[in-house]
């Protein structure tokens, strides 16, 4: 497989804040690649650099062999972007938004017309093409933006939080589109998300990013297998006692997180009664107990010691402190 995107020691600093910290990886052609991490982890900054919107502080990256700093227009022609925040002109119709884009990318009139029809059909907006975007729902807008991002036939498509703020049904629908696109058109897709299930379902490979660093990079399956089997979560007022008691050899991992303990083991169903018995004999109180197959959330937790939601709360607090410092 050919390499579509090559990232090498890419770093972006804003003053003292290191938003992207020396990341390196390759993305192959036709791959759906996910950047997964909490808000503020550096996902959007990475995309901004790759799409030439932001200059890296150091390091370099190429898209289809084109250097992002040396040939901005070359990169821009070969990429399509769907931004995290909406970027449509609400006063124009769906068709006019597409047409504007086509003209900006200098697509000849006849080809432009044909492609717009084709893409609006693909995202099922053909019947609404002459309606003003203001009247569109969130999901329709997203679909229109994806169609627009594909109009100039980019070989790489960036999707920044493509399903943020959409209802579960629309989200499912969009995932299908994205998967079909990658399969049928052979486009390389890079998407950022902080939805674990989204990354899990769509991506061939995932880079988990936290505080600007890549902390894990593999296929969703390998990442979850790395956890060491099923996950048993036990909630208790005395979590330390659980860690002390559960020392059986068939337990691959025991990690305490707040008032919970996460235990990884193969065939959890068979061992659950043993675990309960063990805890009872040692008089460890149990509030609740749950078994589930490992998710990317568990992967994230095992790498960072925090859930993605806690990371986001921390980040918000840091940002607030940072802003306060800047203000004074």
């Amino acid at each position, binding site marked *: 497989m050919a390499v579509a995107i090559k990232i090498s020691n890419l770093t972006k600093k804003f003053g003292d804040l290191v938003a992207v910290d020396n990341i390196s990886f390759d993305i192959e052609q036709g791959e759906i690649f996910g950047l997964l991490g909490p808000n503020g982890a550096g996902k959007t900054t990475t995309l901004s650099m790759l799409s030439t919107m932001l200059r890296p502080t150091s390091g370099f990256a190429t898209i289809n062999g084109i250097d992002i700093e040396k040939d901005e227009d070359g990169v821009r022609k070969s990429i399509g972007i769907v931004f995290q925040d909406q970027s449509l002109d609400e006063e124009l119709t769906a068709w006019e938004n597409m047409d*504007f884009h086509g003209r900006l990318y200098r697509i000849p009139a006849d080809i432009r017309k044909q492609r717009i029809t084709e893409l609006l059909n693909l995202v099922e907006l053909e019947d609404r093409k002459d309606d003003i975007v203001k009247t569109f729902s969130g999901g329709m807008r997203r679909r229109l933006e994806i169609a627009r991002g594909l109009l100039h036939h980019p070989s790489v498509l960036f999707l920044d939080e493509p399903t943020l703020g959409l209802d579960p049904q629309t989200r499912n629908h969009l995932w299908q589109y994205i998967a079909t696109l990658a399969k049928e058109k052979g486009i390389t897709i890079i998407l950022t998300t902080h939805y674990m299930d989204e990354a899990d379902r769509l991506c061939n490979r995932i880079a988990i990013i936290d505080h600007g660093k890549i902390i894990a990079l593999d296929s969703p399956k390998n990442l979850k297998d790395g956890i060491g089997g099923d996950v048993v979560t036990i909630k208790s007022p005395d979590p330390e006692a659980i860690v002390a008691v559960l020392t059986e050899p068939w337990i691959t991992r025991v990690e305490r997180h707040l008032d919970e303990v996460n235990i990884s083991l193969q065939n959890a169903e068979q061992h659950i009664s043993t675990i309960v018995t063990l805890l009872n004999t040692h008089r460890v109180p149990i509030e609740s107990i749950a078994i589930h197959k490992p998710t990317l959330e568990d992967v994230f937790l095992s790498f960072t010691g925090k859930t993605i939601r806690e990371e986001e709360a921390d980040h918000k607090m840091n940002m607030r402190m940072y802003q306060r410092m800047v203000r004074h």
Partner: protein
Amino acid sequence: MDIIYTIWLRNMKRYVRSKSRIIGSISMPLFFLLFLGFGLNSVVQLPGLGGNYIVFLIPGMVAMSVLFTSVFSGIQIIWDKQFGFLKETLVAPVSRLEIMLGQTLGGATTAVLQGFMILVLSVFIGLRISSPTGFLIALGFMVLIGISFTAFGIAIASRMEDMTGFQLIMNFVVFPIFGLSGALFPISSLPAWIAPLTLLDPLTYGVEGIRFGLTGVSQVNPVACFAVIGGFALVMTVLGAFLFRKIKL
């Protein structure tokens, strides 16, 4: 050129659809014209300027209409920034100069159209255009005012994060520019210490240019008017383009 046209086209589409904006921005100069014009027509004497205050006021109101519409059109890119559309334009493989020029021409066109509407309405309250050449001269000055102040609006918008500063700019920059321009009264009637200020105001030359075209009389030499407002348009375009280039998202 095709990119400039694309941006211009978008501006035109948005303009045609914003009926309330069209009517809203005609109404103020029109009310000025009716209330001030008819109200003061019998009391105001204008020796050497035709004597008729309404006819004196018309070029000023045309200029006012162009001025306010163009500043507003330029500043509108703040909305594009806030609603995200600017990103879509800036990430395309086109130069920022083309985007800025398209925006300037789009804004100037809407401004001239607004001024033109005041001009047409003025015919009903006593405007007699001296000659087709005079009309074209007036139109030319309207275009130059439109370009100058759209570019001025873009320059300001490039440095502003949101619309909170808009009222401030309107009250402390745009309104004085309008007030000092001789749109409402002959600049010669001002006290000696203010007169130099009016000559520092670029709009003065625009208003006088339009006035020369429409009525054949002006207090400033029309060639000088053309040189000053033409030069100002050029400087503003360069400044606007420079600041627009540096926009960060």
